[in-house]
């Protein structure tokens, strides 16, 4: 009997679990189409860059026949000229020149000139071509071409860590004047850490006070915390640009209190940025701490003290361990969100306070270097998701039990 009934039961179960899933399908499809696929496509550009390989089929085939490293022999030069001539005719030469320029800065204008010449006259010899454009006689030019011949590349991901393949085939640091990204990541993590600690210093006592207030007053304080929480980051950043002006409110206040003797330059400074980010993130740190603190009975502290513990001991040994999950959750949440800050650094930070998101946007908007933007996105996303998984796995933080 059961051997007949069991399969039927299972199919019914499957159908029943399919129906709730079907309800979620439209949203999941939208997320795939408008979120997952775009991000996957973006990240793929960090490792897949076929422009050079597509533009130079003949030269790359000839390079494979060529003997060694360094500047290749004449057949490669002639094939290169033929490829450029075709690229020029098809209009794809701009793209190729730009792509090569990201690997070899300054190559762009030379390549475009070679292509123009190749379109006009037949290339004759290696010597003539090198004479016309000396860049072709340099080994580093051909190293860049050989690297670009491979459609899959680690160039951009390595660049995101200020690393590159050396001529000896090992991974080494890029020249000091080109090293930017480690410093930018370091700055992003530093500012995120400072902001996280500042919000903790402000939020912890307030959350503690709120748990000890009469419910009606605690409710009012909670509304005061939620008001800025509900105001958009842009509006709050706008408010801070007004406050931080040289003749703005904060400078007025500092002068009036006699804390400073002259007006400070707070706009476009790191101090201003950290103040504004601390203000914006404060509720994110506070709410998880508050929700955990509310679950700790206040009588425990008193019990510890009546058993002879000093106030500090009671706090350190009895209270803090219990509220630690909330503290860690709030801090991690703020830290994660700080890593992705974009608007506030643009509007309040100075040139040396731009965070990783600003560099990503700049590579897309100004430099049109999608590959570098993709590589930086990859590192940013990996750090963020890594911390998020830590947060949910180890601290069981539910993002939405806060409001």
């Amino acid at each position, binding site marked *: 009997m059961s051997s007949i009934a069991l399969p039927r039961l299972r199919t019914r179960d499957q159908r029943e*679990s399919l129906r709730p899933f079907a309800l979620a399908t*439209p*949203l999941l499809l939208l997320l795939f*189409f408008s*979120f997952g696929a775009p991000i996957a496509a*973006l990240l793929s550009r960090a490792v897949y860059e076929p422009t050079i390989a597509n533009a130079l089929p003949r030269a790359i085939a000839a390079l494979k026949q060529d003997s060694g490293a360094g500047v290749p022999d004449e057949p490669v030069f002639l094939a290169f000229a033929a490829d450029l001539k075709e690229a020029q005719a098809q209009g794809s030469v701009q793209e190729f020149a730009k792509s090569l320029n990201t690997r070899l800065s300054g190559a762009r204008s030379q390549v475009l000139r070679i292509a123009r010449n190749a379109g006009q006259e037949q290339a004759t010899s290696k010597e003539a071509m090198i004479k016309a454009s000396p860049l072709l006689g340099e080994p580093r030019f051909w190293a860049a071409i050989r690297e670009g011949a491979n459609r899959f590349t680690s160039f951009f991901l390595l660049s995101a860590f200020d690393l590159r393949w050396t001529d000896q085939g090992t991974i080494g640091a890029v020249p000091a004047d080109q090293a930017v990204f480690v410093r930018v990541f370091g700055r992003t993590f530093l500012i995120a850490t400072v902001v996280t600690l500042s919000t903790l210093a402000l939020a912890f*006592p307030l959350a503690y006070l709120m748990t000890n*207030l009469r419910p009606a007053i605690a409710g009012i304080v909670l509304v005061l915390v939620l008001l800025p929480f509900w105001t958009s980051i842009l509006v709050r950043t706008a408010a801070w*640009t007004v406050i931080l002006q040289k003749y703005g409110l904060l400078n007025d206040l500092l002068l009036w209190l006699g804390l400073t003797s002259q007006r400070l330059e707070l706009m476009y400074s790191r101090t201003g940025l950290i103040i504004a980010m601390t203000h914006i993130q404060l509720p994110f740190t506070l709410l998880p701490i508050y929700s955990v603190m509310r679950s700790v009975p206040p009588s425990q502290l008193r019990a510890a003290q009546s058993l002879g513990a000093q106030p500090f001991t009671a706090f350190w040994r009895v209270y803090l361990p219990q509220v630690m999950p909330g503290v860690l959750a709030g801090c991690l949440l703020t830290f994660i969100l700080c890593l992705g800050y974009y608007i506030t650094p643009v509007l309040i930070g100075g040139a040396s306070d731009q965070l990783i*998101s600003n560099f990503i946007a700049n590579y897309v908007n100004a430099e049109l270097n999608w590959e570098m933007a993709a590589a930086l996105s990859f590192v940013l996303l990996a750090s963020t998701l890594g911390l998020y998984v830590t947060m949910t796995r180890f601290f069981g933080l539910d993002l939405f039990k806060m409001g």
Partner: protein
Amino acid sequence: MLLSPYPTAAERMRVGALWVWCVLVLVFLVVPIFVPVPLSFNSGSFFTFPLAGLSTRWYEVVLGTDRWRAAIGNSLLIGFGATILATVLGTLTAIGLSDPKFPARRFVVPLLISPLIVPVVVTAVGTYLFYARVGLANTYAGIILAHTVLASPFVVVTVGASLTGFDRNLMRATSILGAKPMTGFFRVMLPLILPGVLSGAAFAFVTSFDEVVVVQFLANASQRTLPLEMFTGLREQLSPAITAAATLMMGLSILLLIVANLLARRSRRIAGAVQE
């Protein structure tokens, strides 16, 4: 409650210091967001107190010039589009998730929440790149879809919360009484979870209405929204019109979110009452 029945002097000092610190923190938290409000009524064109005089000239700029009006119109269009889509899709998803038989919930829920965690620049740049390929860049549809993605987690979570108290036996009862699933949904389930749905819709609208990064990448010159107009204004030339726009945006967000929270509270109460 903070003081023990017979407080020592040291204890009084500690609690006093705690109060002073917390009042300062609250001042730091609340005062900045209200600073643009009086400045937006300034008749002068500087951001300084005391005000030169009261006037509504900056509101006339924001509500009267074509540039700002077009931006407000775009914001409302995109906001309503994204709200409708996010509310319908998010509510369906939340109903599916509330079924205990939902498969692979451990993986699906973090996936649904991930638009809130992924840095918004990464989302914006990725969407821009992908939409350019499929022909959705610089279209209202593209911006609405992108905003729907960012807003949907709020709907899923809010409606999900109002469904935790929903008694699934009610749906069985409707089908036993002969109602088709759709009738059961519209006549029994939806009225009970409606406050949660509306509250999710309000969150979704505010998310879209405040969003600037995705719009910055996806919008063309005629699709500029209110936040984008503010962002460029802040970047290029600071005009007091921005304080007026900020005040309007803040007023709308706070109003909608107060309504949303009252509705969410109501939906929890209804859920509780039905369960009893």
